[in-house]
C-alpha cells in the first residue's frame, strides 16, 4: 500500500502542498487535472527525483529505490533506442537485480512479450516499431519488474483512440493477473474513469481524493456504459469550476 502524508514539493515555489492520499495494493488511483497543476511534480516527488517534505510510505516503509521495486511508464515510454525490444524489457530487470537474467526471468520476459503481442518484433529496435508497440514494450518492461508501485505518466496519451482502447485492455488483463498499487497520471477524464478505482482530482485550488463514480462497474464494461459519459461530463464541469 502507498500512503502519502502531507507531501509538499516544487522547484522555486511549492507546486504541491500538504498532499495526502492512499493507494491500496490492488488499486489504481487516477491522478487527474489540467496541465501545469503539478501532476508530474507529484510523480517526481513520489520517486524522490526532486526534494520534497512529508512522508511517502510504501508497504509500511519509507519509499526507496533500493528497498522497493518501482516501475515507471513515462509519456515518451523511456525506451533505450539502442536496445532491442527484448533487451529493453530484460535490461530493467537486470539492473534492478544487479545480475544477469535467470532462465525463469527470461521465460517471464518471453511470456510477457507473447501476452502483449510483441513476440514478432522482439529483435527490432524501438525506432523501427510503431507508437502503440513502443507503449506495450514500456508496459511489458514495467510488469516484468513485478513492482511494488507502478506509475503510469500519461502512458496512453500519445495513442489514437483505437490503439488506446486496445492498450488499456491489454494493460488491465496484465494488471489483473498481478495487481499492484498503481498511480495513473492523466489529463483524460474518460481514461481515468475507465481504468481507476479512485480519483485524485488536482486543481490549482486544491486536491480531493474520492471513489470513482463507476467503481461499481467492472472495468471491462465501463467503455460501453452510458454512465461513463455522464460521469465524464460532471467531472469536467467540476474540474473547470474548481479551476476558476
Amino acid at each position, binding site marked *: 500500500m502507498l500512503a502519502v502524508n502531507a507531501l509538499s514539493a516544487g522547484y522555486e515555489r511549492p507546486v504541491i502542498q500538504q498532499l495526502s492520499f492512499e493507494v491500496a495494493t490492488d488499486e489504481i488511483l487516477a491522478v487527474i487535472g489540467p496541465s501545469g497543476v503539478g501532476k508530474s511534480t507529484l510523480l517526481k516527488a513520489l520517486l524522490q*527525483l526532486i526534494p520534497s517534505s512529508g512522508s511517502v510510505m510504501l508497504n509500511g516503509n519509507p519509499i526507496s529505490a533500493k528497498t522497493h521495486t*518501482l516501475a*515507471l511508464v513515462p509519456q515518451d515510454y*523511456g525506451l*533505450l533506442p539502442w536496445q532491442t525490444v527484448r533487451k529493453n524489457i530484460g535490461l*530493467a530487470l537486470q539492473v*534492478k537485480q544487479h545480475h544477469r537474467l535467470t532462465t525463469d526471468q527470461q521465460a517471464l520476459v518471453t511470456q510477457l512479450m507473447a501476452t502483449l503481442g510483441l513476440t514478432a518484433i522482439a529483435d527490432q529496435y524501438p*525506432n*523501427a516499431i510503431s*507508437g502503440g508497440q513502443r507503449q506495450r514494450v514500456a508496459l511489458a518492461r514495467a510488469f516484468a519488474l513485478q513492482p511494488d508501485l507502478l506509475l503510469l505518466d500519461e502512458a496512453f496519451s500519445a495513442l489514437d483512440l483505437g490503439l488506446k482502447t486496445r492498450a488499456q485492455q491489454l494493460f488491465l488483463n496484465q494488471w489483473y493477473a498481478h495487481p499492484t498499487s498503481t498511480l495513473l497520471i492523466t489529463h483524460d477524464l474518460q481514461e481515468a474513469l475507465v481504468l481507476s478505482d479512485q480519483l485524485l482530482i488536482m486543481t490549482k485550488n486544491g486536491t480531493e481524493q474520492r471513489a470513482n463514480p463507476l467503481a461499481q462497474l467492472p472495468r471491462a464494461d465501463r467503455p460501453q456504459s452510458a454512465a461513463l459519459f455522464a460521469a465524464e461530463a460532471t467531472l469536467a464541469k467540476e474540474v473547470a469550476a474548481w479551476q476558476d
Partner: protein
Amino acid sequence: MARLKQLVAVLLGLHLVWWLAAWVLNRPILPGPVTVYASFPNLLHEQIGWHIYFSLYRLFWSLLIATIIGVITGMVIVRFPKVGRYLDPLIYLTYPMPKIAFLPVIMLLFGLGDVSKIIMISFIVVFQVIISVRDHVAAIPQSLYQTFTILAASRWELFCFITWPASITGIISALRIALGTAIATLFFTEVYGTSFGLGYFIMDAWYRLDYPGMYAGIIVISVVAFALFGALNLLERLTVKWQKDEINA
C-alpha cells in the same frame, strides 16, 4: 549501385570543370587532368606510400587524443552540472580563437617533430568533439535516466546503458567534422620540420614548380580523406544499427 553511379557522375563533372578551366586558363599553374594523371607513376618513385603513412600516423594520434579528451569533457559538462557551469563558458570563450596562431608557441614547447604536429591538430579539433558530444548527451531524454534511476541503477550503469551508447552518434558525427579540419591543419603542420607527409609532398612539388606533381598530391590527399570518411560511415553502420529503418509512428 545507385551511390556508385552518383559518385562516378560527380567525378566526371568535377573533371570536366577542371579540364575546361585548364583549357581556358592555358597556363602551367593549372595543368589539365590528363597531364596530372600522366605524372602519377612518378609518385611511386617519390615514395608516396611513406608520405601517406606519416600523414595517417599524425592524423590517427591527433584524432584519438582529441576524441578521448573531447568525449570525457563533453560528458562531464552535462552529467556533472556543477563542473559544467565553469567548463561551458570556457569552451565557448576559447572555441572561436584561431588556434593555429598558437603554432609558434607549440613549436617552441614541443619541438618541430611529430609531437608538436599532433598536439596542434588535437588542439584545433578537440573543441568540435566536445561540443558535439555535449549536445548529444544533453539531448538524451530525462525519462531514460528516470526509468533507470528509480531501479537504483548506479552511476556506472547509467553511463554504460544510457550515456555512452547515446554519445556514439555524437562522437562519429564529431569525427566526421573534425576529420576535415584535421586534414586542413595537417597540411599546415607538415610544411615544417619534416620531409614526409602529404602536406610536405604538395608544398615540395610547389616549390619545385612541379605543378602536375602538386595536383597529384592534392588528389592523393583527397582520396585518403574520402577513404577515411568511408571508414567512418562503415563504423557508424556497424555501431549504430538502431538508427536504421526509422519509421514515423
